[in-house]
């Protein structure tokens, strides 16, 4: 344990307390978050449920270990789900006691609220800070790969840039899983943030025969229908709607599609190539004869995979380094033990 660790643990506990306070007062910023994210008010409320407000000491120790040491850290939040600033600040505080943050220009509410709740001005919000003026330490950037690359290119020599890019999730449902329970859990993972998170599943692999895949797709459709009533999907912009319409047409050709008011589920046959659906509560289901075949068919997507949800996480823990493995229904709630995205960018 580093000599810094007790201080860092204290900082992290303090940040979690700030998060709890923000959560308590979430109605103050909920409307602003809804406007910025396009989520429905119910979607914002559901998303707030994923804001980390607690962690075990063991998790925080892992987080500190993953963060390393830095003289100072400048955090750039560009494209992320609205609760992501908490973990971003936690990683920065785990690495350094000197932290500045540039909030997402589109969605600054939670960052500002967390910094305000933190209170003593030691985390500075620096919305206009130019990357080229960061004179040492680290930059933690959360955004598209192109944003990460642009920050790397603009950073001064000697400044370490840690990039957290865009990604996606996938779910693998074993033969032994109960179809309805699995569908219900996956649907919750999809509903949260309207699938705009890098942990959100976009592809579901069912172990078994095509009939099992079809049953799972139908159950997902029913579950997403129910979630749509409780937590309506937010606004999709024009491009997203166009992508969704095109995807549904493609699925109608290449397989089968179940179309709901706020979602769509597609099914392709055994062995068919995977076409990743657009965000906005769209899922592609396919079947493979074994878990191993299921994992193999994700190989072309492996560089984008941040999280795999499954009913049998123990099966994967050792085999998929760099990818978070979570229980179905828990994909959006990873422990606060390091970056959400474990890929090295």
């Amino acid at each position, binding site marked *: 344990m580093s000599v810094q660790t007790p201080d860092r643990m204290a900082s992290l506990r303090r940040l979690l307390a700030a998060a709890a306070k923000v959560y308590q007062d979430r109605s103050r910023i909920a409307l602003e978050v809804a406007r*910025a994210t396009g989520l429905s008010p119910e979607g914002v409320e559901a998303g707030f449920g994923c804001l980390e407000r607690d962690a075990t000491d063991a998790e925080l120790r892992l987080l500190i270990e993953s963060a390393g040491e830095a003289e100072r850290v400048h955090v750039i939040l560009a494209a992320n789900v609205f609760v992501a600033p908490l973990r971003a600040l936690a990683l920065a505080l785990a690495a350094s006691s000197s932290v500045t943050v540039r909030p997402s220009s589109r969605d600054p509410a939670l960052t500002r609220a967390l910094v305000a709740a933190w209170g003593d001005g030691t985390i500075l919000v620096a919305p206009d800070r130019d990357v080229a003026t960061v004179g040492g330490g680290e930059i933690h950037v959360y955004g598209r790969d192109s944003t990460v690359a642009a920050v790397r290119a603009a950073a001064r020599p000697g400044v370490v840039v840690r990039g957290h890019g865009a990604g*996606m999730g996938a779910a693998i449902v074993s033969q032994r899983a109960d179809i309805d329970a699995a569908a219900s859990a996956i649907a919750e993972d999809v509903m949260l943030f309207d699938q705009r998170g*890098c942990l*959100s599943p976009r592809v579901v692999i069912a172990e078994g025969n095509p009939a099992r895949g079809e049953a799972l797709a139908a159950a997902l459709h029913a579950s997403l229908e129910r979630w749509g009533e409780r937590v309506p999907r937010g606004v999709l912009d024009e491009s997203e709607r*166009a992508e969704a*319409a095109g995807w549904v047409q493609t699925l109608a050709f290449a*397989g089968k599609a179940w179309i709901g008011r706020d979602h769509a589920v597609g099914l392709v046959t055994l062995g068919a190539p995977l076409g990743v659906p657009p965000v906005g509560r769209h899922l592609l289901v396919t079947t493979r004869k074994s878990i191993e075949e299921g994992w193999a068919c994700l190989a072309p997507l492996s560089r984008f995979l941040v999280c795999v949800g499954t009913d049998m996480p123990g099966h994967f823990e050792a085999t998929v380094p760099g990818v978070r493995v979570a229980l179905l229904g828990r994909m959006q709630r990873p422990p606060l033990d390091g970056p959400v995205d474990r890929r090295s960018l």
Partner: protein
Amino acid sequence: MDAHRQSEELHERARAMVRAFEHGAPMPETFDALAVDLDRFQHAHVEGYARLCAARGVDPRSIVRAEQAPAVPTDAFRLARVFAFDEVEARVVFRTSGTTVPPRGVHAFRDLRAYDAAALAFGRRMLACDVEDRVPVLVLGPDEKEAIDSSLAHMCALFARAFGALESADRTFFLRGGALRVDDFRRRVSDLARTKPAIVLATSFALVHLLEAIGGEVLALPEGSRVMQTGGFKGRSREVAADDLRRAVAAAFGVDLRSVVSEYGMTELSSQLWEATLVDPRAAHGVYVEPPWMRVVPVEPETLAPVADGEVGVARIEDLANVDSAFAILALDRVRRVAGGIELLGRVPGATPRGCSIALDEMLAPPGLGR
């Protein structure tokens, strides 16, 4: 009638349209008449198309106009088989550019005669209608043998054979192993007889590379020469605005600006659109015309209903030469119907990121060649 004979008959009807166009004769039948029969044939023999029709609630028996037929999204060519014959009958398979995530789109052909007839007839009209003799054809692209699954390489080879002076491949194709043979091209241009025009066929990215390689040098083509450019940049070179590239190309080859014409084609199609600046004094660059057996209909991306002339929609393209695949396709290109033709406005832009979920356009960023 069995599928093979039906296909043969439909191919012949498509070719008859092309022949009528070549001879300036009236079309032997209406666009809709052939479209409706293609729709029924494809519904019966392309499994996915039957599913798409069912999902859209369309009964091909009730269709009387082309626009009533569901269009097949181009992505379907990546994810499913879009052909009306057994795989073993495929004579040629064209594939779309590579993307970072496989698979590539596949357009398989059992019979290329309609493709070749359509490409040649309209290509000749738009690029070589005033060229009476065989002329030198220089391709800033690979030999067909080097790119056997490229529809563009096939089309260029077709043009080289039809319009060209039967030169060797070395003196015709100037991209080998992905590298532009700039010195060979320079020598070839300087060797050209000044009494005959030449035709240069090139992708935009190859032209950009050539311009960079030759700096400000002028590789003057003989009088009356023309340049066909096609394809976007697709990450292969720095992007250059279309007008700037056209001006630079015209200057580099010493040709009139109106003699630099753009062609637009897709792996998923059998016919192409062309700018008409070489053949129509009123035509403007950036406006593409269709042959009579092809229609581009801008449609609203969600409802897929046609938009009014002058409004931007995504491209629903009906191509009667697509006999054995999908005569109506839906591309994610934005288009607008204007006086004189169709404006191509580029891909539908990806959504503004509102999260860290990977966007489809990022995932499918193509590293490869044109179509």
